[in-house]
């Protein structure tokens, strides 16, 4: 059976950023249904029942997370994580730019269910166009009575603030995001306490990804059973996969969770480019370990990918062909993580800088045999020793290629030229 997209339906054909167009496609019906027929706990129950798991990387059930907010009379806040910065990931950007009202409807419903006093979008600074589109959509929604006081005649009130970031990957980490939103440097904080207990301004706070929230209107409108009928038992619902690299049609593909990696690459993304043979795939952004071509038949969901040795992560699927040097690829990531480390933790600050220095040496043919042992040992010093997971993430790809492409690293360490050229700019 072919799957009918919901999150991305109409994108590329209709101007869904225009509220009239969005409404003509059934938009804001879920909000209307909730305001007229459902209590906030009924909305919460429906989302819990749907099994919706967070799309930001960790796959934590959204309804369960909302249930962690203590009921102690303090104001609660809802923050949408729209900082999308994981290399290889670009599905949030599409939803924000082309379906902003779905996102607004999603956050309104989530805040209703979790009984939040105010909502925030934390949008990546580079998404200037996305920011403008979201601000405009919000003004339209306010004019229609979907945002503000007495929404659709109910006693539900909700203010939504759009906060623009300014170029820092670490603000995608939920506590870094909160520090930034509070007006400070985007430095992550130790957990516990978790944001649900002590988050924005020390108040109970939920942080959810853009795509997570975009699923909520459909769950409310069509019911949890509809959602559960898509995807796998433990990873229900649709997912937008961002596919890039040496495929014929890089882009975003909305498919049921559990679709195979092979179907995604060969059918939807059009297969490999002429002349390319598959070398490796990262299924979940820069922080995910590589999978080799023998894993093409795995299902892409929150449990099958870990069973195969990687993570679903952000579902930023990067496809590498024979021309991609794994040492060089690891160096790109190392430079990135070293620049983005906030510097609070010594293992991360020093470790990312040294990783990048050693890999640059290897890439330039000036490595030493013991470099590989040093790189392997990072696992012990940089994992589980820091405030946030950036440190752990910074070496997961490296550790996986050190194992799977040991020869390539050994050749670099022996000073041999690797012969793999960076592809010159190809035509559009």
């Amino acid at each position, binding site marked *: 059976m*072919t*799957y009918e*997209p919901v999150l*991305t*339906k109409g*994108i*590329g054909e209709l101007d869904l950023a225009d509220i009239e167009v969005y409404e003509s496609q059934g938009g804001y019906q879920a909000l209307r249904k909730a305001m007229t027929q459902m209590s906030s706990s009924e909305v919460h129950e429906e989302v819990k029942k749907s099994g919706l798991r967070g799309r930001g990387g960790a796959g934590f059930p959204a309804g369960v997370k909302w249930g962690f907010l203590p009921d102690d009379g303090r104001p609660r806040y809802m923050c949408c994580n729209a900082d*999308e*910065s*994981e*290399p*290889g*990931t*670009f599905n*949030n*950007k*599409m939803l924000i*730019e082309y379906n902003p009202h779905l996102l607004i409807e999603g956050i309104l419903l989530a805040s209703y269910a979790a009984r939040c006093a105010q909502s925030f979008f934390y949008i*990546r*600074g*580079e*998404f*200037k*166009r996305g920011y403008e589109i979201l601000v405009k959509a919000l003004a339209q929604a306010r004019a229609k009575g979907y945002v503000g006081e007495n929404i659709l005649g109910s006693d539900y009130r909700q203010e939504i*603030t759009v*906060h*623009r970031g*300014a*170029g*820092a990957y670490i603000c995608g980490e939920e506590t870094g995001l909160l520090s*930034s*939103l*509070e*007006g*400070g*440097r*985007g430095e992550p904080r130790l957990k516990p306490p978790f944001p649900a207990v002590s988050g924005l301004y020390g108040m109970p706070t939920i942080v959810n990804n853009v795509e997570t929230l975009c699923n909520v209107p459909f769950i409310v409108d069509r019911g949890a059973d509809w959602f559960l009928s898509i995807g796998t038992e433990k990873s229900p619902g649709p997912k*937008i996969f961002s*596919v*890039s*690299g040496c495929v014929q*049609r*890089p*882009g*975003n*593909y909305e*498919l049921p969770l559990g679709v195979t990696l092979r179907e995604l690459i060969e059918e939807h993304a059009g297969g490999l480019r002429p002349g390319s043979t598959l070398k490796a795939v990262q299924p979940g952004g*820069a922080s995910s370990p590589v999978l080799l071509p023998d894993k093409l038949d795995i299902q892409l969901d929150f449990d099958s990918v870990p069973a195969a040795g990687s993570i679903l992560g952000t579902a*930023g699927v*990067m496809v*590498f062909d024979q021309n991609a040097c794994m040492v060089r690829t690891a160096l790109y990531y190392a430079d*990135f993580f070293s*620049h*983005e480390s906030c510097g609070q933790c010594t293992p991360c600050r020093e470790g990312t800088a040294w990783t990048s220095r050693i890999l640059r040496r290897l890439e330039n043919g000036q490595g030493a045999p013991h470099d590989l042992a040093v790189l392997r040992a990072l696992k012990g010093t940089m994992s589980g020793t820091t405030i946030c997971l950036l440190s752990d993430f910074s070496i997961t790809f490296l550790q996986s290629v050190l194992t799977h492409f040991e020869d390539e690293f050994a050749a670099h360490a022996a000073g041999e030229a690797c012969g793999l050229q*960076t*592809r*010159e*700019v190809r*035509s*559009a």
Partner: protein
Amino acid sequence: MSSPAWVVERKGEIKEILSRYPYEKSAVMPLLHLAQDERGWIADEDIEAIARILETTPASVESVCSFYSLFHRTPKGRYVITVCGNIQCGLSGADPLTRHFEERLGIKVGQTTDDGLISLLVTGECVAACDGAPAVQVNLEYCGHVTLERADQIIAAIRAGDDAKAISDRFGISPKKAG
């Protein structure tokens, strides 16, 4: 002490920004964006003005400002071209593309053309446009599949005075039809 003109000229907007948050301290980033929007970079007098608005010290505003790579503390050209230097763009030729921009503009990365028109930057952050690799932002507006030929066309459009949005509408990345 003299204040930058935006403090008076955009008074209403400043008030609105402060009202968006339960605590005004959260307004530091939007105010930095506003200041940068005025002159293309953030000067000492902007930092001082923001500190006065938020009743805090210039040092604390500076410490926030310096954390974020999109806030510029030195003058930039009217157009800032930023080449994505992360993995997918790297594999699709971001390095030769950057060299090409340097040659055509007669500047190095980090510099601005003598006429003050164009600055060239490379970012290590993936700009979330890997489906259009190699990708470039012009004043944060997206251009994709930037071949050397398209790079020349983008420079020509800038020199012809086209708005960054119009350039992106012409050279941008259309969303793939999903499914």
